[in-house]
C-alpha cells in the first residue's frame, strides 16, 4: 500500500505548521491529523511527517511510542474505549471491559488495544473520559455512552451496522 496524502489533508497540515513558532511544535498535531485520516500511523507516515517538519524519523517515532493514543496498526471499524480511572473502576468498568472482551473473543488480561480477527471491533482501556458521575462510561468511536451495563453494551454492539 502506497502512502499518499490527499491535497485536503496536506493543506490542513500546512496550515497547522503556521500555528507554531517552530515547525517541530506541530509534530503532535500532525500525528493526530494523520491518525484521524488513515486510522493509524504507519512507518511511511512517520517518514512523511519527519520530512515535512525537517526532523529525523526518530524524533517522530519517540512521540508515537510514547503516547498510547497513537496506533501503529489499524484498529477495528468500531472502537470501544472503556474508562478505567477511579470512578469508573469503582463503578464496574473492569466488569464491562471483561464482558466486551469475552463477547469479541479477545483476551481480557492482555495489555493495550486488541482487535477482532475480522477487523470489526477493537477494545481498549483509556483514562478518564470526564463523566465520573455516570460511571462506568465508554466511547464507541466518537459516540459517548454513560452508565454502561452489560445489557446496554450488548445493545450498543447490536446497533453497529454490519456493513
Amino acid at each position, binding site marked *: 500500500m502506497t502512502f499518499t496524502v490527499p491535497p485536503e489533508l496536506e493543506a490542513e497540515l500546512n496550515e497547522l505548521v503556521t500555528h507554531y513558532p517552530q515547525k517541530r511544535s506541530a509534530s503532535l498535531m500532525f500525528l493526530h491529523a494523520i491518525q484521524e485520516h488513515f486510522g493509524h500511523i504507519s512507518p511511511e507516515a512517520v517518514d512523511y511527517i519527519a520530512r515535512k517538519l525537517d526532523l529525523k524519523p*526518530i524524533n517522530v*517515532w519517540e512521540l508515537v511510542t*510514547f503516547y498510547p493514543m497513537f496506533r501503529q496498526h489499524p484498529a477495528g471499524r468500531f472502537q470501544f474505549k472503556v474508562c478505567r480511572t477511579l470512578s469508573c473502576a469503582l463503578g464496574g468498568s473492569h466488569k464491562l471491559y471483561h464482558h466486551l472482551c469475552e463477547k469479541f473473543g479477545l483476551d481480557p488480561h492482555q495489555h493495550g488495544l486488541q482487535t477482532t480477527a475480522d477487523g470489526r471491533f477493537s477494545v481498549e482501556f483509556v483514562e478518564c473520559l470526564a463523566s465520573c458521575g455516570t460511571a462506568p462510561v465508554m466511547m464507541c468511536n466518537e459516540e459517548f455512552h454513560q452508565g454502561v451495563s452489560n445489557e446496554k453494551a450488548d445493545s450498543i454492539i447490536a446497533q453497529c451496522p454490519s456493513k
Partner: protein
Amino acid sequence: MSTATANDPKPAQPPVETLRIKIDGREVEVPKLMPDASGRLQPTTMLQACAVAGIEVPHYCYHPKLPVAGNCRMCLIEFGTPMIGPDRKPVLNEDGTPKIARSVLPYEPTTPRGAIACATPISPGMELYPGSAATRQMRESVLESLLINHPLDCPICDQAGECKLQEYSVEHGQATSRFVETKVHKPKQVDLGPRIMLDDERCVLCTRCIRFTRDIVGDDALGIVNRGSYNTIAAYPGAKFDNNYTLNTVDLCPVGALTSKDFRFQMRVWFMKETRSLCTGCATGCNILIGSREEKVLRYEPRQNDAVNACWMCDTGRLNYKWIGREDRLIEVRSFRSGARSWSGTLHEVAESLKTAAPGSVAIIASARQSNEELYLLKKLATHLGAVTDSIAREGEGDKLLVNEDRNPNSNGARLTGIAFTEMGIQVPKIADGIRAGRIRTLIVFGEDVTRHGIDAELLGKLQTLIVSDILPNETTRRAHYLLPGCAHAEKRGTFVNAKGRLQRFLKAVEPRGDARPEAEFLQELLADLGIAGGTASPTSFEGLFNQMAREIPAFAGLEWSRIGDLGVNVPI
C-alpha cells in the same frame, strides 16, 4: 580540564567578576560566569563551583562537553540562601552573620529540598552542602532508584572496572537491594550500528549518547522510545547508528549499555596498561590512550585535549590499530648483499655503501608518518650526503569535526625538519627522473611504498643501492638491498606537529617484535658510523635527542622534552 600550556598566548582578559559562597562551611570565591559546553559564558553552576573548590559532585548525565540535560538527578545537593526580611534586607544572626535559609520542601518544611548541581546557578552568599547527611541521602535514593531495573551482573559486564554505577555504588550504594518485584526486561544485544552494541537493560537513560550525536556530530540518530520504566534508547527502526564518531558514545556511556563491537569482551579493563599517545590517522593529531596488555594493543581511546580533539576521536582513527600486531610485520634486519642478519653488520654495510656514493647520487624519501626526531636525523644524513629529500602527500576527505584532509600525522614536522617542501611530494617525480637518467644511484626509503607513488619496480631495479626501512612488507621492501625493520608509533617515543602547528609527544606502549627497533635509534648509530656530528654509536637518551633537535630547528627553539607535557605546545609553522 585545564589546557593552558607554557607557551599558549594569554589574551589580555578583563578581571573576572567573582562571587563569594560557602561550600560545606568553607568560604570560596568562584567566578560569577563560567563557560558552558559550547564555550559561552553562563552563570556558574553549583557543580562548577564545587569543582573550583576541588569537590566532585557525582553525576551521570552531566558532561562538560555536552549540553546540560539534568535528568539523572545524581548531582542533587542540599543548599541554602541568605534570608531576606520583609523589609528586603538580609536577616542577620545574633553575631551579625547573614542568616541562611536551607532549602526545604514547601509543604514539608522539615525535609531538605536539593537542587541539581549541574543546572542550578549559584548566587551571592549561597551555601552548598555537598557533604551533608541530607545530600548523602538524596544520592543514595537516586542510586537505589537507578538500580531498580539495572541488572546486577557486574562480573560478566564489559563495563566493569570503568562503570560509574559501580564507582558510585561503592560510595553511595547499599549492600542489599530492597527491590523485591520483578525487574523490567528490555532488549539486549541490540545491533545499534556497525560498531555499536546496545544493552538496554544496563542503560540509565542519561541521554549523553543522544546529545552527543545530535549536538556534537549533527547526526540526530538516537532517541528514547516507549515510556515510563519501558524507556529505551533506540535508533529509528531499520536505520543504523552509523557516523564516523559513533564509538565516542561508548566512552560517554557511564554504564555498560553502549559497547564497542571491536573491544567488547576482549579484555577486563583493569588488566590493561594505558599509555598516552597520538592517533596517526590524519594531521589533526587526536590525543589518545593506548590500552595494551602483554605487548598487544587492544584499543585506542580519546584523551582530553581541548586544544586539539576535546574528548573525541573518529571511529576510523580509533579502529586503526590492528596493523601494529599484524603477523607479517617486518621483524628481521637483512642485508641481501652479504646475507648479514645483524644490526651492526647491516648498518656498517649501509654506511660503507653511502661513503662510496658520489655526491648528488643519493635521494631520500621519508614518510610524513615518521616522528620529528627521525625526520631530523634523516635530514642530517641528507645534508651530509648532499641528497635530495621529499615525502609523500596523503590526501583524503575531511570533515567539520576532527578528520583532516591531510592523512599524514606529521606533514608539518616533515616541513619543519626540512625533509619536505610546502608542496609535499614535488621532488618525487624529479627523483624518478634522476633514477631513470642514472644520476641517482642510491635511494633511501623510510616508511613508504614508492612503487605506488611514481617510482615503479622497474625504476627501483635500475638503482645500485636501495635502503629501505618499513614496518609492513610491500613492493618496495621486497626490492631492498638493505632492509631495516622499524617501529610503529605505539612501540617508540617521539613527537608530531599537527595541522595547526601543535607539537605533541607520544609514548611507548608495547615492545617491538623481533629485530625491529625505533628508527631514531639506528639512525643515530648510522650517523655515528658516517662521522656525522650528532650521531652516536650507542644512542644517548631519547630526551637528549629531542633537546638537540630543538636547539637546531628554529621552530622548536626553546623546547625541551620534559616541558612539552601531555597536551603539547604550539610551534610556528
